[in-house]
């Protein structure tokens, strides 16, 4: 293998070679630059391969032929090789990306670029601190040069500011080196380790002065105004180097010198890092300029990694895996985003909508933000998982809270940005996207996927990228150019095949969920046949969600469970975002979901206590003092998904604004993920107590209040799909209530709800969605009288609302019957009252739904409408049949589950005696109810027919009131504000308290950011002052802490 010293030789040599070329041979110069960087990349890759795959040990290069400390030595081990590869590849891609600029600026610019890369490689390899200083100086000069070469007029001032700051940093570093040399008598890192330099030792100041300039190189808050100005004004491809390569090198330098100072300095790094991470993410919230936002995000990510470096003693063996995962995620994604920013003409975040023209770039952007947010399958996901586990196991809850808080902020602005990209108007004069830029960006995205695969292999868990379900979903990315109908067929076939292959392994509870997810999902997909064209992006998203769900129900380890959870969240987010007006709602969905996921990861980590491969069933063995907290964290996570009261504000918009066939998926199926989580939680942990309060009792209240508020809010919606969405909230409240009862029938009822809710809510969403597609509005009062034009839709909704309301003889009644039996078994009476209150309210919204749409007056503009398209009707008809079948023979689905539940709750099961179902308290015969009701109905109907057979058919508008003819259908259709008296009576229950609360938090964060950004005045003197203030302040804090 080529000696690593050639990395420096090649790069530096190429830079000198450029000087020999004629000024005009710019193409050749660029070729040489690219070639040198590629060669460097190749050498680095070679070493990485040798180290990683063949297990070679680190190599030492003695520059003067003498062993240290008498000469400078370079070292390349596994981390060095990986970082070198990262740096050279970033340099290479940036050089290709900014070719036009480099050609324009000539060979000098290219030489400066090469010097920068060479210097960064030097920082990585050298073991000598003075050598580090020299390389940093080179980086500073070349960076200043590259910034000044930018076309942006602001680059001049940014470059000057940078040079000023760089000088201050250099001086500090030099002083630090002098002091530490004085203290240790060596300049070689491996020979400088002495207890004196530990925090609190005699050499504290010496090491502090060595450390702090390197920290400042990482652009920590508040000493980072200069860096943000650079990010904003430099050429984005160079910003990519600054963020990905320079940042990585500086981090590694800090990591190296930590060998000198020892672990006692760890908390300093963690403190500085986390402060940067959290504050920068807050500040990024109000940024509108894309590059400045990326700058803040870079600062934040670097801060997070710095915090991890500070914890390296604690993390032990997994340190490299964690820090590396975060670093690679940050570097690749940030470089990619900077490349993308060059393809966007305007500098506002909303200008990124232009990228939408190229689906590849949308894919790349999604890849990058998923990497940055630590979502599966990317390295950051594994790293986050390990990090949180390690920190929780050692009781560092505060750190976890801060990290997760920062992470949710970051996800907030990243996903908001993605929303802009997908939903904001495109500019009127879209230029062509340069092919080179697209290719470089795609290369970065692919590198991200490659890293994802590698981290999956290294993780010690099942590699997510080798899971059949996930691969099947991702496979749709490759065939996304197929026509939608073909993809739909493949999707349906795939889901059914997957079910066929895996159903034998399911227990009855898993079976219910498995059927709903895979078979039920396939049934809903039948409706998707109505879409024409390619429907780009739909299938990967939908299948990602289904894959996550399918993986969730069979997960045995907490890791698998959590990974599946994140996958389904991400898939459903993309799916929801497809809706026309879904942008803000999809954002609030993903934020609540991610926050919930963070609660889940914290809960699992707390439960695992550092144990690798923690099994979900081991939740049962969690120590008694931890159990309630684990329970609370997991429950919050799961209940965010089912949208319990207070955490529900994302649901109505997300479900209502989704596409016609997406709403049933996310309502009928996705919500069940939360319920499944609660089932897993309760079945393993039972009901822990906290301060003498049973936590399931609290859940009982939450379920009851959710049922009440969901139903109440539903009654006052004007938008039909929102009405259904609120109704889902209420229904999930019922299910949670049933589970929290912790008795046999409560669970059976909840599982019956799972089935029922899937059927009727999917059916209603499809039906209402289909009608809304025809009428062009979701507002119910704008419809009316559609029964004559869409009798089938009416019938479907009629069956649906009868089932939802629980009126016999349909299946909803079975749910109510079990509910009453279940609560008779329970001691907790007060929450029942709330449930009682919410029950009848369901009638309000259900009647309103069917009345306002199908009954009343038909509007003139709707007189020529027809039934929704055939394919939207197909699943609805299937659901009607299912609902009727389930109403008559609930035992089909429930009898096995009932038996299965005997394992958990031996008492209080049902007896299935032929047609009669009996409990300890009462009895119920679905068939007889159907027969008797049907018989009476038929008899009365015959009677009426006999008397009234000659009735004359007249139109709706043929009515008279108050002795006058009505004026117009619009003024005659009584539908708007339908329950006005109810609103008058209970208005105080309808105040949007939760919305205001979360809105207030968002406002407060934005206001804080808006206030804090004033701190960055753009004035170089202020920046120097910030820097000195940071140094002095940090030192004072250290003294104070000691």
């Amino acid at each position: 293998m080529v000696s690593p010293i050639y990395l420096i030789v090649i790069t530096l040599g190429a830079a000198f070679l450029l000087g020999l070329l004629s000024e005009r041979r710019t193409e050749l110069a660029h070729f040489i630059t690219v070639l040198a960087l590629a060669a460097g990349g190749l050498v680095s890759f070679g070493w990485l391969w040798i180290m990683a795959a063949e297990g070679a040990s680190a190599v030492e290069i003695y520059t003067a032929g003498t062993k240290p400390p008498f000469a400078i030595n370079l070292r390349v081990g596994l981390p060095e090789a990986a970082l070198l590869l990262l740096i050279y590849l970033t340099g290479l891609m940036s050089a290709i990306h900014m070719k036009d600029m480099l050609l324009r600026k000539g060979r000098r610019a290219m030489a400066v670029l090469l010097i920068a890369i060479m210097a960064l490689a030097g920082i990585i390899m050298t073991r000598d601190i003075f050598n580090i200083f020299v390389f940093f100086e080179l980086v500073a000069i070349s960076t200043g040069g590259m910034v000044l070469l930018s076309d942006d007029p602001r680059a001049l001032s940014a470059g000057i500011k940078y040079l000023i700051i760089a000088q201050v940093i250099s001086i500090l570093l030099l002083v630090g080196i002098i002091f530490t040399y004085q203290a240790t008598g060596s300049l070689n890192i491996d020979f400088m380790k002495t207890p004196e330099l530990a925090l609190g030792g005699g050499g504290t100041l010496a090491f502090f002065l060595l450390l702090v300039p390197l920290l400042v190189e990482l652009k920590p808050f508040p000493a980072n105004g200069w860096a943000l100005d650079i990010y904003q004004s430099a050429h984005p491809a160079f910003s990519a180097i600054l963020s990905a390569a320079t940042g990585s090198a500086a981090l590694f330098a800090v990591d190296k010198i930590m060998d000198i100072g020892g672990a006692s300095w760890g908390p300093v790094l963690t403190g500085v890092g986390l402060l940067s991470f959290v504050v920068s993410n807050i500040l990024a919230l109000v940024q509108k300029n894309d590059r400045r936002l990326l700058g803040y995000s870079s600062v934040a990510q670097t801060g997070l990694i710095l915090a991890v470096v500070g914890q390296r003693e604690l993390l032990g063996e997994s340190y490299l895996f964690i820090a590396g995962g975060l670093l690679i995620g940050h570097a690749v994604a940030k470089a990619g985003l900077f490349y993308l920013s060059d393809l966007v003409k305007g500098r506002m975040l909303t200008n990124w909508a232009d990228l939408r023209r190229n689906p590849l770039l949308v894919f790349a952007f999604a890849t990058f933000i998923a990497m940055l947010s630590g979502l599966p399958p990317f390295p950051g996901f594994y790293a986050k998982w390990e990090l949180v586990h390690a920190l929780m196991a050692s009781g560092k809850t505060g750190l976890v809270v801060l990290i997760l808080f920062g992470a949710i902020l970051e996800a907030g602005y990243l996903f908001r940005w993605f929303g802009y990209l997908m939903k904001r108007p495109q500019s009127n004069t879209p230029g062509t996207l340069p092919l080179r830029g697209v290719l470089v960006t795609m290369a970065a995205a692919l590198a991200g996927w490659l890293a994802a695969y590698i981290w999956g292999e290294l993780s010690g868990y099942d590699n997510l990228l080798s899971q059949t379900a996930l691969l099947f979903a991702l496979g749709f990315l490759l065939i996304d150019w197929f026509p939608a109908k073909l993809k739909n067929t493949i999707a349906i076939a795939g889901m059914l095949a997957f079910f066929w292959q895996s159903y034998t392994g399911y227990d009855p509870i898993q079976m219910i969920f498995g059927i709903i997810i895979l078979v039920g999902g396939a049934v809903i997909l039948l409706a998707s046949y109505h879409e024409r064209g390619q429907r780009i992006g739909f299938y990967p998203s939908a299948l990602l969600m289904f894959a996550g769900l399918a993986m969730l129900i069979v997960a045995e380890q907490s890791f698998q469970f959590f990974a599946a959870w994140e996958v389904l969240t991400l898939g459903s987010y993309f799916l929801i975002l497809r809706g026309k007006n879904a942008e803000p709602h999809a954002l609030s969905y993903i934020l609540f979901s991610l926050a919930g996921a963070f609660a889940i990861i914290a809960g699992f980590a707390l439960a695992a206590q550092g144990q690798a491969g923690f099994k979900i069933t081991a939740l049962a063995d969690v120590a008694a003092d931890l159990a309630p907290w684990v329970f609370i964290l997991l429950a919050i996570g799961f209940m965010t998904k089912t949208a319990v009261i207070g955490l529900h504000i994302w649901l109505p918009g997300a479900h209502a604004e989704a596409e016609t066939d997406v709403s049933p998926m996310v309502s009928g199926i996705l919500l069940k993920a939360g319920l499944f989580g609660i089932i897993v939680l309760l079945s393993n942990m039972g009901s822990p107590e906290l301060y003498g309060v049973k936590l399931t009792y609290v859940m009982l209240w939450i379920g009851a209040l959710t049922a009440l508020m969901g139903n109440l809010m539903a009654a006052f919606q004007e938008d039909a799909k929102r009405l259904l969405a609120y109704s889902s909230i209420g229904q999930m409240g019922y299910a949670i209530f049933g589970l929290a009862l912790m008795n046999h029938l409560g669970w059976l009822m909840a599982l019956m709800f799972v089935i029922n809710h899937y059927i009727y809510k999917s059916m209603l969403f499809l039906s209402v969605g289909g009608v809304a597609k025809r009428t062009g509005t979701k507002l119910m009062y704008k419809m009316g009288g559609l029964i004559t034009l869409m009798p089938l839709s009416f019938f479907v909704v009629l069956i649906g609302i009868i089932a939802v309301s629980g009126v016999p003889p349909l299946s909803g009644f079975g749910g109510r019957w079990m509910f009453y039996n279940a609560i008779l078994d329970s001691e907790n009476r007060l929450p029942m009252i709330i449930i009682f209150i919410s029950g009848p309210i369901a009638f309000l919204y259900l009647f309103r739904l069917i009345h306002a749409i199908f009954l009343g007056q038909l509007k003139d503009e709707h007189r020529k409408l027809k039934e929704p398209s055939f394919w939207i009707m197909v699943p609805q008809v299937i659901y009607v049949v299912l609902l009727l079948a389930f109403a008559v023979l609930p035992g089909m689905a429930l009898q096995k589950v009932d038996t299965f539940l005997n394992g958990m709750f031996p008492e209080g099961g049902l007896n299935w005696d032929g047609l009669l179902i009996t409990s300890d308290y009462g009895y119920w015969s679905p068939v007889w109810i159907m027969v008797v009701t049907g018989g009476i109905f038929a008899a009365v109907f015959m009677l009426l027919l006999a008397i009234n057979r000659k009735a004359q058919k007249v139109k709706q508008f043929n009515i008279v009131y108050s002795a006058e003819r009505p004026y117009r259908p619009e003024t005659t259709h009584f539908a708007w504000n339908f329950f006005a008296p109810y609103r008058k009576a209970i208005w105080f229950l309808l105040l949007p308290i939760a919305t205001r609360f979360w809105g207030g938090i968002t406002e407060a964060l934005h206001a804080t950011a808006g206030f804090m950004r004033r701190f960055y005045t753009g004035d170089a003197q202020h920046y120097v002052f910030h820097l000195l203030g940071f140094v002095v302040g940090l030192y004072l804090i250290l003294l104070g802490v000691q």
Partner: protein
Amino acid sequence: MEFDWIKIPYALLTLFIVLNYGLLMTAIIQKMGARAGRRYGIRFYQNYIDLIKNYSMRSKITHGYMFYLGPVFRLTGGIGLLLFVPTIYGSEMWSNFSFSGDLILALYFVFFGTLGMALGAGESGHPFAALGVSRGLSQVTAAELPFAIAVFTVALQYQTLNFNEIVAAQQGGFLNWTLFTNPFAVAAAMIAFLGMMMRSPFDVVVAPQEIPIGPPTEYHSAYLALMQTNRNIFPIAKIVVYMNLFFGGAGSWPEFMIKAFLLYLVSALVGVVFPRFRVEQSIRFFLIWGVPVAIIGLLWV
């Protein structure tokens, strides 16, 4: 399960008795109300005349299928409720079809007819019908509350959802009636009862005295006749539920008739004395007076 075909004639007989009893009783109670207002009132057979007249009217129109089926749903709801609940305690035959389901069935079947009729009325397109439904649903859902809690209280008290067992537990003297064993639950249920009977002060839903409003607005001839038939069956079916749950049930037809009359009289009496509430007032009334009493009853058990 073996089905006893003889149950069908018994069911029809039950229906016949209840219908005739309802026609006469409502007329008499209406007459009593009129007398309280110093009017003469209708003749006791007036209901028969109205019914026959409406059944035989020749002019009839329909606004569509749902409109047509609305009254059918309504009457099915009334008859179904009556037949799903054991009418006479201790008699297999007069228990009709109560083998199909228990108390919960009765509780939810109440809505079957209401919902169907509301849908039918909705298709008429008449805004007053929809207005009446809006008011009615708002009020009934509030009125249901104390009742639902009271029902649950009773079930909890007797640890069963089976009507026969609930009545059985109240046998052996009137002091064993729920009325005396849990007066709060019964008080709450009676408050709800007032709301369900659609009489003053809770009659703004149908506003019988002035403009025709509520579901029946567009209904006429045989449709209206079906609804009138129901109006004489359904309240009594509800009273049967009340009787069974709170007042010891009825061991024989005479006992049944006396209890039904007295219970019906309660709502008539209140109606004669009190003026009308607006809907939001009645909702608040049930929430403020009915629900707390019901909760006390629930905690009492």
